[in-house]
């Protein structure tokens, strides 16, 4: 047979490699990581699934512009440290993103392989490369350009603030991040539990930023300690980036919401994550351990909360959501993990009031059944109450996880900063430029509650805009 006639060797189809996970019935009793990461062998096998598209569809899906085929190729060559460094050319928080990004909506969504089968596990690979570099002690600082002499203040050390800081410092600017809490990380430290993002992993990435030269000042509340004008004036900063998040919790305004045993998700998670109240009394901050915990809401925060309640010993940890499973805004992986861990779901259910025992503690919650009606402005079918379907649930912990509002601390002391009718800062969607000269803003305080990666994306765009702006500032 001539070579021409030889049948093409059929490439064996390798399925998407699953990341090892802790057993659900074990992990719902501890705060160790759920996902255990790829081995090098699994990572290489998964990386080889990538067909290295000439015009990759994944890259435009990544708000922080990672050279996805580039780093995956390096993994196939077993150049794991180089792969991590490739990612860090544009993203200084790869171990975080590899864990918490909704990849199905970002890079993996448009992956060509996803059209007929499953997309490349880009997030898992990103996590693998970042973890490998860190665990090998191979984290190194790249060569930085000469100092420009410009100073930028970043308000809030969450994902948006850290991204802008990393990018600006790599352009040669001097950056100081002011953080209100006593630890850096913002929502990554107070909001996301240890079992999804270990603090040690987060702090290693903060440490990397500091090695790049970013200064982080904790216990620094802008709006109180310094105003924005003082940062630009007496403190000598040339530009300010505001990335304070959407920090104010929303409540439902139903009777009984101020009873003992009712929390905002922010409070419940902050106690557990930032203050480590799940380790009370070793740590001083206390936390209620419930038998029947309910969490109202269906987003990632609701999932983090309900899974925390389960880990703290709740017999029943239940999500109460007014629409159906199909409309849950949480990442699919989080929903699946929650289901595996024995989290219960009451769909098409809305709370009406919370009922008290004789001591002012939560005893029960009265709810009503809903049905889905016509689509609303969000495109999702609107839940409509079913008359006469009221019922009572026995509960001893209620956590409200229905979203957040803008925190007005900065705006109260910065009158010339334009805000919209919901109290968010008006920022140019491409640059983050605000109504105030030299002041940029991004992340949830501009868009309202969104995701870590979208905040990072806005930080990335703003870093460029701030860099351009600084060129116009006379020294």
């Amino acid at each position, binding site marked *: 047979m001539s070579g021409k006639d030889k049948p093409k060797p059929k490439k064996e189809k390798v399925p998407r490699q699953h990341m090892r996970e802790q057993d659900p019935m074990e992990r719902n009793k501890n705060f160790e990581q759920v996902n255990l990461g790829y081995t090098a062998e699994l990572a290489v096998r998964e990386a080889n699934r990538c067909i290295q598209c000439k015009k990759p569809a994944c890259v435009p899906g990544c708000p922080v512009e990672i050279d996805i085929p580039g780093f995956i190729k390096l993994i196939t060559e077993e150049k794991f440290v180089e792969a991590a460094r490739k990612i860090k050319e544009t993203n200084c928080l790869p171990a975080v993103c590899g864990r918490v990004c909704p990849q199905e909506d970002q890079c993996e969504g448009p992956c060509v392989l996803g059209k007929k089968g499953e997309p490349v596990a880009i997030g898992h690979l990103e996590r693998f490369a970042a973890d490998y570099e860190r665990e090998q002690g191979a984290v190194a600082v790249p060569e930085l350009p000469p100092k420009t002499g410009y100073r930028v203040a970043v308000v809030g050390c969450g994902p948006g603030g850290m991204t802008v800081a990393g990018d600006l410092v790599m352009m040669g600017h001097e950056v100081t991040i002011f953080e209100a809490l*006593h630890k850096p990380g913002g929502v990554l430290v107070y909001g996301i539990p240890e079992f999804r993002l270990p603090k040690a992993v987060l702090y290693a990435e903060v440490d990397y930023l500091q090695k790049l030269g970013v200064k982080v000042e904790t216990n620094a509340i802008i709006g*109180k300690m310094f105003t924005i004008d003082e940062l630009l004036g007496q403190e000598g900063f040339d530009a300010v980036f505001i990335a304070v998040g959407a920090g104010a919790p929303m*409540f439902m305004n139903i009777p009984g919401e*101020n*009873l003992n045993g009712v*929390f905002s998700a922010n*409070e419940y998670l902050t106690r557990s994550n930032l203050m480590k109240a799940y380790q*009370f009394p070793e740590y*001083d901050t*206390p936390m209620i351990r419930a038998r029947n915990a309910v969490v109202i809401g269906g987003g990632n925060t609701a999932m983090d909360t309900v899974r925390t309640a389960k880990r703290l010993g709740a017999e029943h940890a239940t999500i109460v959501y007014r629409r159906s499973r199909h409309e849950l805004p949480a990442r699919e992986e989080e929903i699946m993990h929650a289901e595996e861990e024995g989290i219960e779901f009451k769909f098409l259910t809305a709370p009406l009031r919370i009922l008290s025992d004789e001591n002012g503690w939560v005893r029960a919650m009265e709810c009503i059944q809903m049905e889905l009606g016509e689509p609303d402005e969000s495109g999702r079918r609107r839940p409509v109450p079913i008359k006469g379907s009221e019922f009572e649930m026995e509960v001893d912990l209620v956590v409200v996880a229905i979203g957040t509002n803008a925190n007005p601390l900065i705006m109260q002391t910065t009158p010339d900063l334009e805000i919209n009718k919901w109290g968010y800062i008006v920022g140019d969607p491409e640059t983050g430029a605000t109504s105030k000269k030299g002041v940029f803003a991004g992340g949830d305080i501009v868009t309202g509650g969104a995701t870590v990666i979208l905040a990072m994306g806005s930080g990335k765009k703003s870093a460029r805009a701030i860099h351009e702006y600084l060129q116009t500032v006379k020294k």
Partner: protein
Amino acid sequence: MFEIVDKRELAKGIAWFEIKAPRIAVKRQAGQFVIVRLQEKGERIPLTIVDSDAKKGTIVLAVQEIGKTTAEFQHFGIGDSILDVVGPLGRPTPIKNYGTAVIIGGGVGTAEAYPIAKAMKEGGNDIISIIGARTKDLVIMEKEMKAVSSKVKISTDDGSYGLHGFVTDALQQLLDEGLHINVVVAIGPVPMMKAVCNVTKPHSIKTLVSLNSIMIDATGMCGACRVTVDGKTKFACVDGPEFDGHKVDFDELTKRVSAYMEMEKKSYELYKQSLK
């Protein structure tokens, strides 16, 4: 880290600390507070700023031992450092010339009432102070209060010093004497503030109370400190800590501040055992 530069005992179990915190010292106004976390495993607790010295870059806090953290705080001495101090937090006291201001402090609340008395005095008011304590040995800040007041009344629960009774009895005396009061500020335990409001309400005397709600971040992020004022939910950390006392739901507040009583007791006991 925030260094303690001076310390003295105001009374048994109540310590006065002067702490290096220059950025807070410059900004701080009467009625504002800080959040303190003593050490890595510590909780965040709110403490009213008693005084400050912008030149020295220091603030003053008064701490009464009531649980684990406040007990641990008593063991901090001059030269020791506190891990975290954040502030200044909360809205300042609305200082203006009201006329005659009666400033009431109960227990360690007297130390917290002092900066308000001082600022009200500087705002042109005639200050009459009432200091309440369980017993003579626990009467604090008498000298400081006298320095900013035209009259200081003292009440003790056991009658060992001053009037035998509560701060409300002292307040009632002032009213019975026909004193025209324009504003009352009361800081102390919840039952005391509630009782003061019950006295002033029939006379329609504007009464400010400073609420000692449970807080974590104290920047409006968590909502632990929510309190019902005039039927609406407010956050003591950013909307307060001072509110119109006639509109505060004290019964709800009483329940909310005792939410962790059992756990707090346990933590305190464990700490005391650890000292043995």
